[in-house]
């Protein structure tokens, strides 16, 4: 299945593709010399803090800011109505999500707050401390309104409608009904049914959201320094909502302290900061504190899924029927909308298997909680846990080994291209190869023996699997067709400097995942220079080619292909000039290790620095009709498929203390197929980091609200994230099936780990407690939930 031509550019002499090269950009971070937004101070810069609604749903009338305005260091106190002169509202809809609706959202609420934490008044001061002091002095006359806290009753007639203009609290609904579902269930030998609950959780980037907006009225120019993933998208939105010429907006993303999807959305407080800079004609900084992050960074995953699966006597999956409900807060988040996660859930569930009958209903409802939107592995962990949970339920019901049951149903490795029931098209996946490799890595049979021995001693260990698919390298089908200015293409501009160095500007952005390093590896390989000769510039819309940035596991696959194409083009130009200088045939020359060499034998003919010297300073020595071009730009957008699907399989080995309900993670194994691997170390670390975020959702993380919509655990002491002590070592293996849609062949890997971990942990816990005839399906699996399942509480 995985054929590789031996003559591709990836196999050039001294190729860096497939090498675990360390990230050049990491050195400054190791010495504390990075530049995160909050590290920056601009002349005349002021700070904003916000009065935030203490109520989940409340009207407010009179705002008395006299005392605040008189406080020390205060520059201004601004209401929503005042700021609305500088920033138009937005509506988070996409046309291809038919029927999705939302209400206009303002940077600062005008007269009604719809979640606890919504900004109501902005206070601008010389220092953040002073702004916070004055926030406490602003008097706001709130009148509490009935709260929609429970998504289950959000659509009931008795429940108040949050935005009366919308008519109801339904944001989006989608139904799919493929094949003959009812017949499949009627014919089934076995039907398993389960309700899965997924806790609401959030990204908890260690660097909180941060922005400095710097408006220069003399040029009507806005520069925004932002901790974010998609600078060009934000540039467009700033221009659009601040009424500026988009050519006069510059967005700069320097170092970003974690993003994971959190920093790819439009946040009202950040929009307010931009508008305030225009209003006040000076730089304004907003750096969310941790408490603000918990109540305003997007949340995700709050889904309740009722699902059932029909299975034949032979263990063949016949049909899935599911109902997904999610409450996304009071607004669909702009511009990517809050319909995507539910959409993914009903697209992807059961995706690794040959299931032909499929029915799903997804409803997305408004609630008076913080907004939900796309966070790492959007919808995937839910779809994976539902599908894999049903698979293991079937294995239990039919007393079959869960691996054997998967083998009988995973799409055969020779069945591609394959179209899944929901219409997803898979170019080429490798489920069976991955599973075989995983079983070997973990010594499955040995582990089962060990499990049995421990069980005899009263120690309850469990093994859980999750086969998975992941959406990567999205084409314009994801957002562009829905009308959003979110680019799916990427560009790379590459320049030979007179020193022989190569400077690349790229549209994809570095979030720590290593995209700059990967671009450098591709560029160095394509041109034929050492890694240290490559310099990558990213994140500045004034400098880099137009691009989408980093999301949906696209940087390496799409940005990498653009860099490959640019590198090849530059190499061609360089060889053309070298051939003239050396009076040789360009086809007989190559570039290796930073020098022009004889293609045959590799004898050095001229270092690139010499070529640069001649072109830049002694053009007079070149023939009159030759004009060297030492800068090239190339672009790439995936076209053959809407997405480049990847696949993989994860397994967890856990021990459940059946007295306390505590789960100890003993070991984790992952085999993933992300196509061509550019940097094995970075790929493995993406998987490990992703797995641990999945562990967070499975065991620890949950945003807790009470029935009044009050957020209960807005501190890092109360919202539990994975920490070092409890995390297992994670062994990673690979199968490589390059996509043929690009020469590079790379697919994404940023979200695979997160996709499978919750499902595999759930299945491992259930395997451990199977002797008690009990199982769990509500995440996170707290000791209490496990004890309740075991009937001990």
């Amino acid at each position, binding site marked *: 299945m995985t054929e590789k031509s031996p003559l591709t550019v990836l196999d050039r002499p001294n190729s860096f593709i497939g090498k675990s090269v360390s990230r050049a950009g990491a050195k400054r971070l*190791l010495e504390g010399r990075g530049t995160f937004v909050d590290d920056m101070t601009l002349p005349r810069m002021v700070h904003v803090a916000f009065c935030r609604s203490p109520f989940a749903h409340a009207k407010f009338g009179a705002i008395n800011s006299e005392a605040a305005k008189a406080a020390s260091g205060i520059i201004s106190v601004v209401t929503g109505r005042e700021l609305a002169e500088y920033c138009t509202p937005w509506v988070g809809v996409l046309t291809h999500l038919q029927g999705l609706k939302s209400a206009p959202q303002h940077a600062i609420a005008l007269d009604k707050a719809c979640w606890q934490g919504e900004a109501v008044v902005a206070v601008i001061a010389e220092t953040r401390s002073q702004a916070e002091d004055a926030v406490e002095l602003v008097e706001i006359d709130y009148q509490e309104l009935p709260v929609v806290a429970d998504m289950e009753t959000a659509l009931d007639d008795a429940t108040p409608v949050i935005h009366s203009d919308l008519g109801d609290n339904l944001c989006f609904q989608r139904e799919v009904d493929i094949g003959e579902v009812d017949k499949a269930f009627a014919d089934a030998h076995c039907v398993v049914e389960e309700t899965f609950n997924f806790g609401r959780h959030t990204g908890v980037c260690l660097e909180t959201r941060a922005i400095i907006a710097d408006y220069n009225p003399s040029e009507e120019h806005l520069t925004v320094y932002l901790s974010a993933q998609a600078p060009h998208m934000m540039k467009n939105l700033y221009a659009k909502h601040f009424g500026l010429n988009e050519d006069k907006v510059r967005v700069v993303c320097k170092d970003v302290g*974690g993003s994971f999807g959190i920093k790819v959305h439009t946040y009202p407080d950040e929009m307010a900061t931009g508008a305030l800079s225009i209003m006040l004609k000076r730089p304004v900084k907003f750096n969310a504190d941790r408490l603000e992050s918990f109540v305003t960074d997007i949340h995700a995953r709050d889904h309740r899924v009722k699902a059932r699966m029909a299975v034949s006597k032979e263990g063949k999956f016949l049909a899935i029927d599911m109902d997904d409900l999610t409450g996304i807060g009071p607004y669909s988040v702009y511009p990517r909308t809050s319909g995507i996660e539910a959409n993914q859930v009903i697209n992807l569930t059961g995706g690794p298997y040959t299931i032909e009958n499929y029915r799903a209903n997804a409803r997305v409802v408004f609630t008076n909680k913080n907004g939900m939107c796309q966070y790492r592995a959007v919808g995937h962990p839910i779809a994976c846990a539902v599908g894999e949970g049903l698979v293991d339920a079937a294995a239990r019901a039919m007393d079959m080994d869960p691996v054997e049951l998967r083998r009988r149903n995973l799409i055969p490795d020779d069945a591609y291209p394959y179209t899944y029931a929901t219409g997803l098209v898979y170019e080429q996946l490798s489920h069976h190869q991955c599973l075989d490799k995983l079983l070997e890595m973990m010594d499955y049979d040995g582990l089962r023996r060990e499990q049995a021995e421990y069980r005899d001693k009263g120690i309850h260990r469990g093994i859980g699997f999750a086969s998975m698919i992941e959406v990567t390298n999205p084409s314009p089908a994801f957002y562009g067709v829905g009308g959003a200015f979110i680019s799916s293409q990427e560009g790379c501009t590459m320049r030979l400097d007179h020193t022989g160095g190569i400077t690349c500007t790229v549209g994809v952005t570095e979030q720590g995942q290593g995209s700059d390093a990967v671009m450098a590896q591709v560029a160095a390989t394509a041109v034929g220079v050492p890694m240290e000769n490559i310099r990558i510039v990213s994140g500045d819309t004034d400098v880099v080619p137009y691009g989408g940035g980093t999301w949906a596991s696209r940087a390496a696959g799409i940005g990498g292909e653009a860099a490959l194409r640019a590198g090849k083009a530059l190499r061609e130009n360089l060889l053309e000039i070298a051939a003239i200088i050396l009076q040789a045939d360009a086809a007989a020359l190559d570039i290796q290790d930073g020098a022009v060499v004889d293609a045959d034998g590799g004898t050095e003919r001229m270092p690139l620095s010499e070529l640069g010297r001649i072109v830049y300073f002694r053009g007079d020595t070149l023939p009159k009709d030759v004009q060297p071009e030492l800068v090239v730009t190339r672009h790439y957008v995936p076209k053959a498929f809407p997405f480049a699907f990847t696949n993989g399989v994860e397994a967890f080995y856990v021990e459940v203390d059946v007295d306390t309900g505590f789960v100890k993670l003993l070991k984790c194994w992952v085999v993933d197929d992300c196509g061509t691997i550019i940097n094995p170390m970075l790929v493995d670390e993406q998987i490990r980091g992703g797995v641990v975020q999945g562990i967070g959702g499975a065991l620890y993380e949950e945003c807790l609200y009470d029935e009044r919509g009050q957020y209960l655990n807005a501190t*890092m002491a109360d919202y539990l994230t994975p*920490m*070092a002590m409890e995390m297992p070592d994670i062994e990673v293996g690979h199968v490589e099936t390059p996509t043929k849609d690009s020469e590079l062949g790379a697919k994404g890997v940023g979200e695979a780990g997160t996709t499978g971990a919750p499902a595999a942990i759930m299945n491992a816990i259930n395997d451990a407690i199977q002797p008690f005839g009990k199982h769990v399906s509500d995440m996170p699996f707290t000791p209490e939930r496990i004890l309740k399942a075991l009937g001990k509480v």
Partner: protein
Amino acid sequence: MSDTLTVNLTVNGEKVSRAIEPRRNLVDFLREDLQLTGSHVGCEHGVCGACTLRVNGEIVRGCLMLAVQAEGAVVETIEGVSDSGEIADLQEAFHERNALQCGFCTPGMLLAAADLLNANPGAGRDQIREHISGNYCRCTGYQAIVDAIEAVGRKRSGQSS
């Protein structure tokens, strides 16, 4: 507003004197008054460890100590231990092993790691995990960090890695 107080301390080997508000915590003081922005602020309530600093030789949370409490103290930050070369081996190991992604936790993580290895270079993986258990990293999943610290510990204690 409360009156300012003058605080005198040694930061990365340099004597520093500043008049500051008592409420200014140590990490904000370093970042905003001394422009030592290598120490980061992640939660301001002592949980995340991004602001880990060394005060009189011991690691502390920079957000849970006031700058005025550092009167007469010797404070060392990531900038100081980088420039002195003290943790060059740890930094190299983190770099080689990709034991950082976004790098926001890294200065605090390195100081916590150095604290452990100074006392116990032979620390095993569980001891390493325990010692950095108060330093939150969202990116790596910790394994690469543990690997890097373990490798340096082995080198320092003369074991082969």
